[in-house]
């Protein structure tokens, strides 16, 4: 049924720079906070990041994590709820760096987080400079409401893949749908192909 509401235009899209905003998205100036649960508050002394599923697990404490080589990246982010934000600046550790610490031949990863959230990705979507574990946003430590102390950052996919409060990656041979992927959201989530839901 194609029913349109007279006089309703939704969000404005005409101020979008050419080629920067995927189909069906609109630009936002703010940074909407979307959450599936209460904000976890893990103290840094207890925080660890683990890569498991390889020959041996690798684990870093917060201090050890901070000592890893870090990068500052400027990326566009796209949420499946339709907002996009351009030129966001993050600081974090490349997932490539983390995976180098582990001996594995996995094809998939499952990110797991404080609060129980999970999201799945093919290995090639988190390697070769495509993904980070980010702990800084816009020059400041990442706010807990936005996923701090650290979140996964995978900007080329819809932002539900950039899991907040991430605590580790599990290496897998087979794809294992995460929290939203097991309930209707697309397994991969490429915004340029508008892969929002199952079957897209």
């Amino acid at each position: 049924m194609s029913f349109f509401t007279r006089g309703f235009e939704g969000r404005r899209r005409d101020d979008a720079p050419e080629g920067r905003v995927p189909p069906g998205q609109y630009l936002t100036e703010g940074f909407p906070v979307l959450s599936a649960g209460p904000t976890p508050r893990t103290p840094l002394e207890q925080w660890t990041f683990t890569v498991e599923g390889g020959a041996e697990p690798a684990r870093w404490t917060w201090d050890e994590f901070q000592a890893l080589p870090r990068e500052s990246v400027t990326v566009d982010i796209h949420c499946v709820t339709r907002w996009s934000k351009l030129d966001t600046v993050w600081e974090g550790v490349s997932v490539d760096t983390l995976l180098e610490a582990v001996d594995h031949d996995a094809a998939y990863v499952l990110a797991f987080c404080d609060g129980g959230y999970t999201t799945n990705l093919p290995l090639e979507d988190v390697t070769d400079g495509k993904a980070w574990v980010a702990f800084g946003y816009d020059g400041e430590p990442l706010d807990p409401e936005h996923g701090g102390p650290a979140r996964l950052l995978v900007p080329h996919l819809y932002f539900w893949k950039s899991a907040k409060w991430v605590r580790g990656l599990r290496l897998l041979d087979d794809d294992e749908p995460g929290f939203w992927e097991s309930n209707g959201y697309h397994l991969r989530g490429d915004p340029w192909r508008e892969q929002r839901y199952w079957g897209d």
Partner: protein
Amino acid sequence: MAGTAVLGRLTTGWQVAEAVDVVEETPRVRTVVLSAPGWPGHRAGQHLDVRLTAPDGYQAQRSYSIASPPGEPPAITVEWLEDGEVSPYLVGELRAGDRIEIRGPIGGWFVWEPALGGPLILVGGGSGVVPLMAMARLRAAERSDVPARLLLSSRSWEDVIYRDELAALADGPDGLEVVHTLTRSQPEGWSGYARRVDESLLREVAWPAEARAQAFVCGPTAFVETVASGLVALGYPPERVKTERFGATG
């Protein structure tokens, strides 16, 4: 009309409704009276969902409490929220004759009718008054003598939704008792409450615990939780305090 669905599909879903009347309640709040041919009727306290579709297919959807009592066409009272997606359209753009999609009625718990008894204490924060007004209007329409008190928190006298109608409902025997608190500014000579609802205000206004009153609390999440825990602290059993939280995004 109670739901009769089991794990099957109802035909209840989205339907097109026409705005037949709009009423400006306050500078930022408007009531939209709807006509929907498939409307099955509703209970006081229920809400409906509104869906708007832009020409490019973009859709936005929000929930609004039904302000009208059972037996009348569904009417929603909408507050314009800064940065809102749907409320600016409903309050600022929509005109009589326009058509929107609605879904409902929705809700089986935050509902009241006189047969459920009382006494009643209705506590609303801003536009949280809307479902409580449906209850108050039903009570008046049925000439119910269930004792009922409404405590309404608003920013200022100009922001009080249904202000005159509430005064009229308060008139006469078995009238609704209406208590206002104005949290941001008060008119000259105001002698009423002038602060956010807190436990001491509730102690003065709400029925005492011995009255075994039924409470309905509606408004923003923080408001609802402060009031609900205040009532429980006064001795209300938690199951006698029903709550409906509004989101801050519209």
